[in-house]
C-alpha cells in the first residue's frame, strides 16, 4: 500500500510543478529581444524621453491560449496576423503560450511591466483576468479576442460565429448523403454552443429533416488539446450516421479532421482555412479573421482605438473557405445557396439566432 500512496503523491507533485513552468520566448523573427539601452541611438534620437523610448522599443505582444500557437486554427490565425505585421514592418513582437490557467494574470502583468503595447490575447478565458489587470496599466492598450471587457484601454473583438456556422451548416446538410451531420466542440462554453447552434440552424434551413448530432470534448481548457478524444468522438458520430463533421475544437480538431479523413467522410475546419490539411476530405472551413484583428491592432500600435468591435459576414470578419483543395466537393448549387444565404444574412433578411444572447437554441 505504501508504494501506491507514494506514487499518488509523486503524481500530484508532477502535476503541480508542471503547471508552473513558464517559458518566455522572444519574437518569432528570431531577433534578439530589444532592450532600449543596448541600441546605439543616433544623435537625433538622443533627446527622446526614456519612457517613450522604452515603449517604442518593446513593441506589441501576443499571448496564446491553451490550445497552443500551432493549433492550425484559432491561435495560429492570430500568430499569422502578427507574423504578417512583423514581415511588413520589420519589427518584432513578443509572444507567450499559456501552459496553465495560473499563468494568465502573471503573463499579462509581465508584458505590461516590460512596456509591451499593445498586448493582444486570444480566448474568452482572459476576460476576467484582463478586467482586473487593465485598470492597473492605464497607459497600455489591450486587445482581447472572443470576449468583451469593458475598460477604457481595452479593445474587445467578438465575432458573429453563428453566421459563418450557419453557412457551413447549410453546406454540411447539402453534402450529407445519410441525412445526419455532426458537430464536435472543444470546451463546453457558451461560445462553442454558439457555433453549434448556428451550425444546426443552417443545416435545418437547408434540409428541414436533417439530424444534427453533437458532442463537446470536455469542460476544462484541456478540451482544446485532446485529439485522441476528438478522434473517438468522431468515430462515435460516424456510428450514429454522421457523414459530415464540423470540428470547432482548437487542436482537438486535428484529431477530428484526421479521423474524418481516415473514415472517408467529410470534415469542416474552423477559424483558419484548414482545407489543406486533408485535401478532398474537408468540405470547407468556417473562417474567423483573427489574423486581421491582430494585424490591425499591431499596425495601429499604441495609438489603437479601444472599444468593442463586432466582426461578421458584413465586414468579412467571418466567412467560409474555398480553394483548390475543396473545389470538387462544393457543387455549384451548394455555393449558390450559401452565397444567397450570406447576402440575406448581411441584409438582415435571415436572422441567425445567437446562442449567447439567451443561452438557448431554437432548433434543438
Amino acid at each position, binding site marked *: 500500500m505504501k*508504494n*501506491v500512496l*507514494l*506514487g499518488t503523491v*509523486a*503524481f500530484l*507533485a*508532477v502535476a503541480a*510543478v*508542471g503547471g508552473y*513552468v513558464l517559458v518566455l520566448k522572444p519574437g518569432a523573427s528570431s531577433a534578439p529581444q530589444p532592450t532600449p539601452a543596448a541600441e546605439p541611438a543616433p544623435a537625433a534620437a538622443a533627446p527622446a524621453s526614456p519612457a517613450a523610448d522604452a515603449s517604442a522599443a518593446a513593441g506589441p505582444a501576443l499571448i496564446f491560449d491553451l490550445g*497552443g*500557437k*500551432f*493549433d492550425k486554427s484559432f491561435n495560429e490565425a492570430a500568430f499569422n496576423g502578427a507574423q504578417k505585421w512583423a514581415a511588413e514592418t520589420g519589427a518584432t513582437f513578443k509572444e507567450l*503560450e499559456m501552459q496553465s490557467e495560473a499563468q494568465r494574470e502573471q503573463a499579462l502583468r509581465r508584458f505590461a511591466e516590460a512596456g509591451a503595447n499593445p498586448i493582444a490575447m486570444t480566448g474568452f478565458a482572459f476576460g476576467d483576468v484582463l478586467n482586473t489587470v487593465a485598470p492597473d496599466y492605464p497607459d497600455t492598450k489591450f486587445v482581447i479576442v472572443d470576449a468583451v471587457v469593458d475598460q477604457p484601454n481595452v479593445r474587445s473583438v467578438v465575432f458573429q460565429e453563428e453566421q459563418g456556422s450557419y453557412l457551413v451548416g447549410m453546406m454540411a446538410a447539402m453534402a450529407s448523403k445519410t441525412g445526419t451531420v455532426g458537430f464536435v466542440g472543444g470546451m*463546453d462554453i457558451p461560445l462553442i454552443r454558439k457555433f453549434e447552434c448556428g451550425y444546426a440552424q443552417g443545416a435545418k434551413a437547408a434540409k428541414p429533416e436533417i439530424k444534427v*448530432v453533437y*458532442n*463537446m470534448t*470536455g*469542460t476544462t481548457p484541456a478540451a482544446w*488539446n*485532446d*485529439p*485522441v*478524444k476528438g*478522434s*473517438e*468522438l468522431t*468515430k*462515435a458520430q460516424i*456510428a*450514429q450516421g454522421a457523414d459530415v463533421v464540423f470540428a470547432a475544437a482548437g*487542436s482537438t480538431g*486535428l*484529431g477530428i479532421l*484526421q479521423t474524418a479523413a*481516415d473514415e472517408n467522410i467529410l470534415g469542416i475546419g474552423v477559424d483558419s482555412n484548414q482545407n489543406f*490539411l486533408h485535401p478532398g476530405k474537408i468540405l470547407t472551413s468556417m473562417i474567423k479573421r483573427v489574423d486581421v484583428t491582430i494585424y490591425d491592432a499591431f499596425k495601429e500600435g499604441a495609438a489603437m482605438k479601444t472599444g468593442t468591435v463586432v466582426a461578421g459576414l458584413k465586414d468579412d470578419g467571418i466567412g467560409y473557405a474555398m480553394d483548390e483543395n475543396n473545389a470538387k466537393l462544393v457543387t455549384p448549387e451548394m455555393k449558390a445557396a450559401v452565397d444567397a444565404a450570406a447576402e440575406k444574412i448581411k441584409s438582415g433578411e435571415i436572422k441567425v439566432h445567437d446562442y449567447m444572447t439567451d443561452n438557448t437554441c431554437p432548433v434543438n
Partner: protein
Amino acid sequence: MDYTTLIEILGSTLRLGTPLLLACIAGLYSERAGIFDIGLEGKMLMAAMASGAVAALSGSAWIGLAAGITASLLFAAIHGLASITFRGNQLISGVALNFVASGATILIAQTAFGQGGRTPPLDGAARFQAITLPFAEALSGVPFLGPFYAKVISGQSLLVYLALAIVPATWWLLYRTRFGLRLRAVGENPESVDTAGVSVIRLRYTAVALTGVLCGIAGAYMATSLQAGFGREMTAGRGYIALAALIFAKWRPWQALWATMLFGFLQALALRPDVIEAMSPGSLTIPVSFLDALPYLLTVIVLAGFVGRAIPPRAGGQPYVKER
C-alpha cells in the same frame, strides 16, 4: 443501448484499451522482478515522440516503431542503472524520468519540426493502418457474432493484435518457463535466486528491458496508429492508469487484460453521452464532467470493494544487496 451501439463502443474500447494494456504488461514485467516503475508514462511519451518523428521523416511506420522502442529502451536503461546498479530509490527515478520525458519530447519535436512540439501529420505507410481480417465482409451478415467479428475483432491496427497476443505470451513466459519462474522469484525473494547461482542483476535488467520494449510499442501505437503524429503530453496519464490497472489485476497477465479493457470500456462510454442519457431513467441530463470522472470513480469503488487485498511482489522497491 442497442447491439450496434454496443459494437461501436466495444471497438472504441479495444482502441483505447490497447495502450493501457501494453503499458500494464510492461509494468508487470518490471514489478514482478522487483523494480517498481512509475515511469511508464515517460517511456510511452518518449516512444510516441520518437516514433512520430521518425515515421514522419522516414515515411515508414515500422522504422517509427523501431525508433519508439529504442527511445523507450534508453529510458528503461537509465531507470535500470539508477535503481539496479546504483540502488537508488525506484520511485524517484521513475518520477524524474517522467519529468524529463514531459519536457524533452516537446523540446526535441519543436527543435526538429517547429510546429509547437507536435510532429508532422502522418499518412499512408507512415501509420499502422486498420487491417480487415479475412471474411469480415462475408460474415457481417451472420446474426450477433457477424457484426462483432466485422466491427470489433476486424478492422483494428496490427499493434492492437500484437498487444492481445502479448497477453498469452506473457502468461506462458511467466508461468511455464524457467525464465518466468526466476523472474517471479527475483521479485519475491532475490536471495534465493542468488543462492541458486542465478544473477539477480541480469534478471532485473532483462525485466526492465522488456518493460522498455512494451512501453515503446505502446507509445508507437499512440502516435502512429491511434493518432497520426505526436502531440504534446499525448499519453495523458495513461501510464498511471496502467499502474492502477496493474494493482487491480494483482500483477497477473490475464487479469491485466480484463482490467485495462474495463478502463478502456469506461473511457469509451464516457465518449458517448447520448448512450448514457438514453439508458438513464427519466432521461435526465448527465454532465460531461461526471462522465469524464466515471472511470476514476469506478476504479476507487472497484479497488475498495471487489478486488480485495492486492499484495505486491514482496521484494518490490528494494534494491538487492548481496550479503557478504
